[in-house]
């Protein structure tokens, strides 16, 4: 059973390439993480305080990028059924966040209005 799956896995890796041959470059991943965090901090501190609630729902939607990982776990041809079920639930959960996150953010932002035509205080 497991041998069969292993055989399947190796045949599929030929198509996807760079799977078992070279290990991932950990250092570049850590660099990416550090830079993205710094960039994120720089961008977020400048977010208007008025918009902190929509900011949180927007970042919810963005971190639902976990859909990408979930699709891979759900959809890979050679993965056994049990794994696919785990991926399926994960994909459902993160897709919920994508949809509700973007929709509610936009719904809230639509409500922020300037008085009349000119934006100056009365």
């Amino acid at each position, binding site marked *: 059973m497991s041998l069969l799956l292993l055989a399947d896995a190796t045949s599929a890796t030929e198509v996807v390439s760079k799977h078992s041959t070279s290990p991932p470059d950990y250092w570049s991943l850590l660099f990416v*993480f550090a830079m993205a965090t710094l960039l994120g901090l720089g961008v977020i501190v400048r977010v208007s305080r*008025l918009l902190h609630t929509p900011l949180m729902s927007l970042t919810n939607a*963005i971190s639902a990028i976990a*859909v990408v990982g979930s699709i891979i776990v759900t959809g890979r041809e050679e993965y056994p059924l049990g794994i696919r079920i785990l991926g399926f639930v994960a994909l459902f959960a993160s*897709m919920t966040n994508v949809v509700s996150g973007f929709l509610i953010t936009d719904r809230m932002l639509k409500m922020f209005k300037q008085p009349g035509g000119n934006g100056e205080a009365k």
Partner: protein
Amino acid sequence: MTHHLVQLTYLVATVLFVFSLQGMNDPKTARRGVQAGIVAMFLAIAATWAQPGITHHIWILVAIVAGIAVGVPLSKVPLTAVPQRTAISHAFGGLAAGLVGTAKFILWSVYEPQELSQFRMAAIVAEVLLGFLTVTGSLLAAGKLQEVKWLPQRPVTYPFQNVSNIGLLGLALLFGVLLVLNPTGPAAGFLFAGVILLALAFGVLLIIPIGGADMPTVISILNSYAGLSAVAMGFVLDNKLLITAGALDGASGLILSIMMCRAMNRSFANVLFGAFGQVQAVEADSQVRHYKSETIEGAAQVLEQASLVVIIPGYGLAVAQAQHRVRELYDQLTKAGITVKFAIHPVAGRMPGHMNVLLAEAEIPYSDLIEMDEINADMPQCDVALVIGANDVVNPAARSVKSSPIYGMPIIDADKAKTVFAIKRSKNPGFAGIDNELYFSDRTFMLFGDAKAVVGNLAKHLAGGGGH
């Protein structure tokens, strides 16, 4: 070739995500930011799905459709329920990370043990730990925010709480370290299950001692955890898009947590392990003191004479769903030539920015929503400060009473206004259980009743030809 195309799409998506957050600098550009985010997400999903080797299309399609079916109603909740919705979405995010981490652990340890390096094992442990503790922690937070009946609203404490919590986390970390030292050892499966169970338990125990007043901070921290669990997933799957998008979320949660902590003059550790607001409740009733109350008519007359009115909203406004009545009052006052400003404390409500969203829903122009530091400069010129459902954020004890749990917290200087009206549902102390000195000041008059009804009556009174 496809590999490069997928990576290029991921790169474009990353850039768009950054633009998306940049749009939030200003309400005018914010909706364009959301559009950039939607495009980025669409590209990321399409590029991943189109990869060769992804063949179970029906499974993917059904999961996506189910996600949409649940996501759309979740986006239509009333704005007063946004904190709960946010907590639930953190739970979903944590769940996705935890499950993907578990799936990869099983795949590698059963089928390709040579792939399960120590680095990957460490990433999986981080992903699963953060993911699953976010699941139970966020669900419990959502339950508390929704005021689910069988959940205690007040902080729950018991002896040796912090010691046992830290011990539990330490045990989970120990299991994690053992796993990293020997990812494919004979006990790996057992240790992995242990990490999951301990993370789930720790999430519950972390939130149990936390009261409503601390929810803005806690939600921000959970937001950060959900982002970091996506980062860990990126390390597990060797996927830079997951790392960048997760890091943006992690950074956002971190900044919001810091802002919330600062706005309460407390540290992370104090929020998480302090069990706020259960010490003081006992001392509060040492002496009986008297409030001065005012009638709607009387309050309306004073309001009519004012030239600057500052409205200070708090969570009580959200509970009473009073935002539209507040808008009516705002209209009546501005029509009479009175300047009306809203003083927004960073931790008013149950999540960062909660009050702004509620008032925006009632179509109050955002240029009249003023941050605490800015409005405090104007408070001595303020004729009437109208406190609606706020308590701790206007409590002068924060300035002077060293023994108070909120001592040192920056507050809105309502007590500096010439007259203060405070609308309050009952004579009980606020959520944090702290008595409020402001209510006993000689310039303060209480308007007891449901915020929605009181504000509505005030507006009606002002509309009805002003006094008798």
